[in-house]
């Protein structure tokens, strides 16, 4: 047999054998640092607690919740239907199964924004798409959804609507009735401005 053939065979066996000794390593799609910085500066990853509450109540199938706090915190209190992926186990296979679902948006949350934001950066770096952060975390959740504050009288109507929604959501999540003091109920006298008539037809 030709000596060159034998040489080539040795090379290929050495190369193939070398593969066995390569350390296992997961390849992630490289995120350009500049792009990542740009993304971090964008507020588009945030979802408000109201949107999350609405999504849970409506059982929106396009969203899933992920609690990134430690498991004992998760066991004490979390949102209904949420998965638990503590920050330090984001790189495991189980979290990949949860996060790597096409067309499903994942909302991360922790006590405040900090851990969820950290988790968001890591998941971005790992190449997952459709990852969001619940703005304000569970602290904000308690403040806005579980114990909503009544807006001032002078507040715009939209805030009252939001307050009504939050009261309803609070009942939904806690199961308690919120006492509505009939005496304090105020009737708003709405005076509508007359619509200016638009010139119809004619020329």
């Amino acid at each position, binding site marked *: 047999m*030709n000596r060159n053939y034998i040489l080539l065979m040795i090379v*290929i066996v050495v190369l193939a054998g070398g593969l066995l000794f390569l350390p296992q390593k997961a*390849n992630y799609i490289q995120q*350009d640092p500049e792009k990542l910085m740009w993304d971090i500066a964008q507020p588009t990853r945030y979802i408000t607690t109201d949107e999350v509450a609405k999504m849970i109540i409506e059982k929106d199938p396009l969203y899933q919740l992920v609690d990134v706090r430690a498991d004992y915190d998760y066991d004490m209190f979390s949102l209904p239907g949420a998965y638990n992926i503590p920050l330090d186990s984001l790189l495991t296979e189980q979290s990949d199964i949860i996060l790597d679902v096409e067309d499903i948006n994942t909302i991360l949350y922790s006590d405040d924004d900090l851990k969820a934001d950290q988790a968001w950066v890591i998941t971005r770096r790992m190449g997952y798409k459709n990852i969001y952060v619940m703005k304000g975390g569970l602290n904000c959740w308690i403040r806005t959804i579980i114990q909503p504050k009544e807006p001032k009288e002078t507040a715009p109507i939209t805030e009252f609507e939001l307050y009504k929604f939050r009261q309803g959501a609070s009942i939904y999540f806690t199961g308690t009735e919120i006492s509505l003091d009939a005496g304090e109920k105020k009737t708003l006298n709405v005076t509508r401005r007359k619509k200016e008539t638009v010139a119809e037809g004619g020329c």
Partner: protein
Amino acid sequence: MDLINTTIMGPLIPLGQIASGWDFVIALLIGIAFGFILEASGFSSSRNITGVFYGYNFVVLRVFLTAVVVAMIGLLYFNYMGWIDLNLIYVVPTYINSMVIGSVLMGLGFILGGFCPGTSYTGIAIGKIDAMVFTGGLFLGIFLFSELFPALESFYYGDSLGSATIEDVFGISNEKFSFIFVIIAIIVFYVTWLIEKRVRKTVNPYKFE
């Protein structure tokens, strides 16, 4: 501000390194290179192709095994170096039924015609009449298959394993399998060389210049 990802990583088209409109151009260039290498390896000759079946010429087996081994090891090293993401490579879905029947038919066509689809074109390129006839039959077969496809569809897609890889099905890691495969390939190279030597009394080994 330049926000475009500057690190080049494969696969080039799925990751947007090359616009997807270029895939036909790239396919054409690779096709030309493939045809050239087929012809240069002597695959335009029906004798070389059918020689595998009759046991006097195993050059086809050796060339294709070499191609598989080189591509396999190369891709694994590329993946390790971060030059390509193997998870994004398209893996042809496995349909057991149709693959078994298809490979038997293909093998039969190989022996009867003395060409495979690729080599029949290189045969035409060097003006072989039998290659032209073969290609006519090939198009006839494609036409008949397309017309009969509605009737064959359930069988064709039956017994699907999805985009299965050796790693998924047998649970053996890519690296280990590659090593075993290389050893098998080398044994095959040696054994076929021995067979050729016995069958053809005057073996004229190719010499590197």
